[in-house]
């Protein structure tokens, strides 16, 4: 009998990889969905186990060498508090969105393609989980491409509702491939100078060899990685692929992507900037703080204003996602404990809120077949639970007290104030919240204070959609009231990344 506990890090990738492909063979109807739910449920359970293992481990991390090859030659999977946390988010959101997907996919994807849809869906999760778990730089690239390729396919599956999905997908494919190629080049330059692909070994060699950090090879590697990663995490102004992709993708896919894909991009940035290059190089020797903070603040403000002007609500949330990503990047660009902790906790909080909000929009599409600002008029009475979920999620985006968004913004503002001369950034955080008030209020006003266009009766969304939606929104309230768990994990992770004592 296989000892599951000893092989958790690798099982969390191989199970969705193998089972994802098998999904195609499950035929049609409800079976592919049931299979995908079982697989993602298993993965979520594995992620929970792994989290427990990491917390119980005396070194604070779990290392797994694939095929027992020592890490100099083989691939090492290395899980610490940060990975385990991101894994838990990706696996948990993946599980809930899979449950949610059933109704939404029935409505939006032709019945003969459901097995392919769920196969690609599970493989996309496999890629995202793989990036998070691995400790090998080249492995990151391969799994990044697995997740990207499957995401392009998932977005393009929205083509039966709107042909814009095809161009959105192709545009993302080209930008995403260029971004991934930059990452590949950066990894190449790093391998050239350190002679290894293991992240930990890379870091040790960069730190121990005198003069190596001043070499041009390392500078070029850093520049390529910074640009490539910014493209992948849709940092303003390299975000152009994101609004279209989220708008035209099937609703379930938008919910999954908004909650997980860019977050894993941020995680990669953490790994490369903090774990490999180290804070001293990334944020002290290089003007990274300035570049990232400027892009992130501009992103928060510009996309906030753009979101206000949108009539399509999915597009509005997509722009808001770029803005919220700006907060996350702003946090870690400060390179102090509060900033990075705010960034880590906002990864979870934004995933919960935005995932729930995209699910609410998907439920509106399910009932009304559209989701523009007109279609939600008077919907507060017709679909009370869905609109309430959307509203609570919106309060979270604003950073209203008692929602999870408040906790992360608190850390972020603290982080801005902790750094000398950086206090104006706290103003950016607050101004961004004000913009979020405006674009959330437009929807709330339409839903609760305006008369509907017609008296057509509209049913509340089905239970299978409401349940995962409210689990996410409920979790965002729970973590807003009880921030002990997220606070502890994000501060631990921040301290580990920054290399300061516990």
């Amino acid at each position, binding site marked *: 009998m296989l000892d599951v506990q000893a092989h958790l890090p690798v099982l969390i990738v191989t199970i969705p990889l193998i089972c994802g492909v098998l999904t195609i063979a499950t035929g049609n109807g409800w079976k592919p969905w049931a299979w995908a739910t079982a697989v993602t449920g298993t993965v979520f359970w594995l992620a929970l186990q792994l989290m427990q293992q990491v917390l119980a481990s005396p070194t604070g991390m779990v290392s797994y060498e694939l095929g027992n090859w020592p890490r100099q030659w083989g691939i090492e999977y290395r899980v610490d508090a940060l990975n385990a946390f991101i894994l838990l988010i990706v696996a948990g959101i993946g599980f809930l969105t899979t449950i949610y997907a059933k109704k939404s996919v029935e409505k939006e994807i032709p019945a003969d393609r459901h097995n392919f849809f769920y196969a690609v869906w599970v493989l996309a999760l496999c890629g995202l989980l793989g990036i998070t778990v691995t400790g090998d730089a080249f492995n990151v690239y391969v799994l990044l*491409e697995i997740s990207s390729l499957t995401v392009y396919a998932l977005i393009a599956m929205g083509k039966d509702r709107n042909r814009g999905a095809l161009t959105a997908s*192709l545009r993302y494919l080209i930008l995403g491939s*260029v971004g991934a190629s930059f990452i590949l080049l950066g990894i190449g330059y790093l391998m050239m100078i350190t002679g290894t692909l293991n992240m930990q070994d890379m870091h040790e060699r960069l730190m121990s060899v005198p003069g190596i950090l001043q070499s041009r090879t390392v500078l070029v590697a850093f520049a390529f990685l910074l640009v490539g990663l910014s493209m992948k995490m849709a940092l303003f102004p390299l975000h152009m692929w994101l609004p279209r992709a989220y708008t035209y993708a099937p609703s379930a896919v938008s919910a999954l992507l908004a909650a997980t894909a860019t977050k894993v991009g941020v995680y990669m940035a953490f790994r490369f900037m903090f774990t490999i290059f180290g804070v001293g190089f990334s944020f002290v020797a290089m003007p990274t703080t300035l570049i990232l903070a400027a892009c992130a603040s501009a992103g928060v403000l510009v996309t906030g204003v753009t979101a206000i002007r949108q009539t399509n609500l999915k597009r509005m949330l997509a722009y808001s996602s770029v803005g919220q990503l700006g907060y996350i990047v702003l946090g870690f660009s400060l390179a102090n404990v509060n900033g990075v902790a705010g960034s880590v906790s906002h990864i979870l909080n934004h995933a919960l809120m935005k995932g729930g909000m995209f699910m609410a929009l998907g439920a509106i599409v399910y009932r009304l077949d559209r989701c523009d600002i007109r279609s939600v008029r008077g919907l507060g009475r017709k679909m009370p639970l869905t609109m309430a979920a959307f509203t609570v999620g919106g309060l979270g985006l604003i950073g209203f007290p008692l929602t999870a968004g408040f906790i992360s913004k608190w850390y972020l503002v603290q982080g801005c104030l902790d750094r000398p001369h950086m206090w104006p950034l706290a103003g950016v955080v607050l101004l961004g919240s004000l913009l979020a008030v405006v674009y959330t209020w437009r929807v709330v006003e339409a839903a609760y204070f305006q008369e509907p266009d017609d008296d057509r009766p509209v049913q509340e969304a089905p239970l299978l959609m409401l349940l995962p939606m409210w689990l996410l929104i409920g979790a965002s309230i729970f973590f807003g009231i009880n921030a002990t768990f997220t606070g502890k994990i994000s501060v631990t992770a921040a301290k580990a990344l920054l290399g300061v004592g516990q």
Partner: protein
Amino acid sequence: MTDVLGIYNYWIYVVLMMIGLYGVIAKPNLIKQAIALGLFQTGIFLYYISMAVIDGGTAPIWTTIEDGAQKFQGPYDNPLPHVLILTAIVVSVSVLAVALALIINIKRSYGTIEADEIERMDHEDRLSEFRAGQALDAADDAEAHHHA
């Protein structure tokens, strides 16, 4: 001079990559964009392979010497980048396959593969959606006036 010419394969890699990047940005034809993307990635493969080479290196293959012992014949090139690039080639072929599949579908639903024309049609799609909303708003206003 030999410093510059001696590393000519790195020059080729940079030139190839820039040609590819230019094509991706500047060419409106989607097939040409896909080709340019392929070129861009091929440049990177050349870079990886070049970095494995050492002066006088051979393939890392065991050869049997007279007394029966197995040995490497002299210094050998680093095989690791070659293996990595095998994987990267597979990835780039898959990317190209997905891109071509998308382009076929775009041709079917738009009737063209010129990016600027597609952009215009997408814009019109969005504009007509927007105008429909505006017309409804105007109708609402007229009705409100009527009641007043």
